[in-house]
């Protein structure tokens, strides 16, 4: 399964929305419930699903779904 597909599953689980279809250009303004509290859950879920850890500096660079995807790609090669 592609990284983007797995990431989409994580978003669906975190935001309890099975119809969610995330795109790289999407921001927190485009996804209902993606506030700072939910962001913490999103990052924890991504870390658990992909078995990776983000540094604080990396987290601050995430503004879009694409930013998050690129960080994941960079870690899992």
């Amino acid at each position, binding site marked *: 399964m592609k990284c983007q597909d797995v990431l989409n599953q994580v978003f669906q689980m975190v935001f309890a929305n099975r119809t969610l279809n995330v795109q790289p250009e999407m921001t927190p303004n485009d996804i209902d419930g993606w506030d700072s509290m939910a962001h913490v859950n999103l990052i924890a879920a991504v870390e*658990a699903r992909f078995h990776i850890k983000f540094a604080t500096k990396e987290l601050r660079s995430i503004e879009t779904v694409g930013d998050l995807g690129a960080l994941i790609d960079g870690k899992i090669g």
Partner: protein
Amino acid sequence: MTTNLGDICKDAPDSGGKTDWTALRLIRPDFSVRAFSFGEIDSLASQFANVLEEIGEGGGQTIAILLSKCAEVFYGVLGTLKARSVVLPLFSNFGDLALVDRLADCAATCVLTKRSSVARLQRIRAQLPALRTILLTDSDRDLEPGVLSLPARLARASDVYQSRPVERETPSLLHYTSGSTGKPKGVLHVHGGLGYLQHTAREILQLRPDDLYWCTADHGWITGTSYGLIAPWSLGITQVQFTGAYDPDRWFRVLESQPVTVWYTAPTALRMLMRTEEFDFRRYDLTRLRSIFSVGEPLNPEISRWATEVLGHEIYDTWFQTETGGIMIANRPGMPVRPGSMGKPVSGISAAILDAEATICPPRMIGRLSLRYPWPSMFCDYLHRSDVYRARFSAQYYDSGDLAHQDEDGYFWFSARNDDVINTSGHLVSPFEVESSLLELPEVAESAAIGVPDPVVFEAVVVFVALRQGVEAGEDLPMRIRLHVANRLSAVATPREVVFVDKIPKNKSGKILRRVLRARYLGQDPGDISTIEDQP
């Protein structure tokens, strides 16, 4: 009779009667600004009140607002009050269970929200028989019967609404608060508390007509309505509001660029700022910032010291509750701050530390923090729970549920809650609600939730889970448990940690012994455990 709270922008005295005086500078995440004058806000509130009348939601209904920060929240609250309906501001990230508990309890007939929340509301609509109308801020047309467009109705609504004076005891605002047991309770306020909110805004926040004031609290909190809307606007003060999420750089750009002169925020936000690595606070010019206030959780002394050193300002901590409506005890400019202290009572408020016999404790003895009643902004009831309301009052005092002590000089010092409620980032989370949501999972046989000390959010939620016989805790189960709580209640209630246990300790009447779990988790002596059921 008293002034209708919905008319505060029309009547704001310090704007000198000028309706073009700026009431709100709404800053979007891209830093574009939409400014609203007092006249515009009042006109929009009048239009909103007329819309409510048109759709049969004026006069005595309960209107819920399920939106993150945006202009519609502000004029929606005021318009609902003008129409003499009760307004229930909700956190926009509430999950299904949290929404059902609140909307069903108060029999809300209308929810003001966005299209993206319609599916969430339709999922639970069968459990909300009173709900007639979903009013959408971002749809130009009605989607179906009962799912209506606000913009289409605002466009044809008159901007004149003749609101009538109201009785002092006319219900106005409803906020829900959580306890150790049972469902959340609806704390009902009345139109009559305005004078006290103004008093505290002058005496404690020391707001002046030329201030640019920023209260970061969401309107789901009493702080967001009392001090992020009603008090400042009733005094003609211009407010700054940022619609984006917490972000150190953006927050400091707001403080610098507006420039904000009085900032009211939360200890969690300050602690997060303090721990933000590689962030140079000194590159922001905060010379126009006069005062920083905080509310929601106790303010650690180290934050005070950090703020003085790095931001060049003391932080004035304030204390109040959903039930008190306004600030009761506070630090303030002009009074020496004792880092870690709650400060002293507002003038006109009598606070005391009482022991179990309701006798005033000597200095430094911990007891129940109590307030002599009445005071003007106090709540008038717990909705449908008048028995619980009455139980909070003795002959002379209201019991806050907090434990504290007072020093020889009259400063109050918070100690702990007198119950199992978890204060995380200033949100009171009910362990009962967390446990109830966990029991919805098919794998979970028993559960318990506790709060444990946390250096950033004050208390973190930790849950203990006993699985059903034959169920194994797979790798993904802790995350599923955490997200289930987040989605059913709220992201703020997300457990920090899931601990799997064989059995939840209970006493012989079945009450969960959370103090035992807390002590074991923290490696402390659990004390008397003789009452645990089946204790070996």
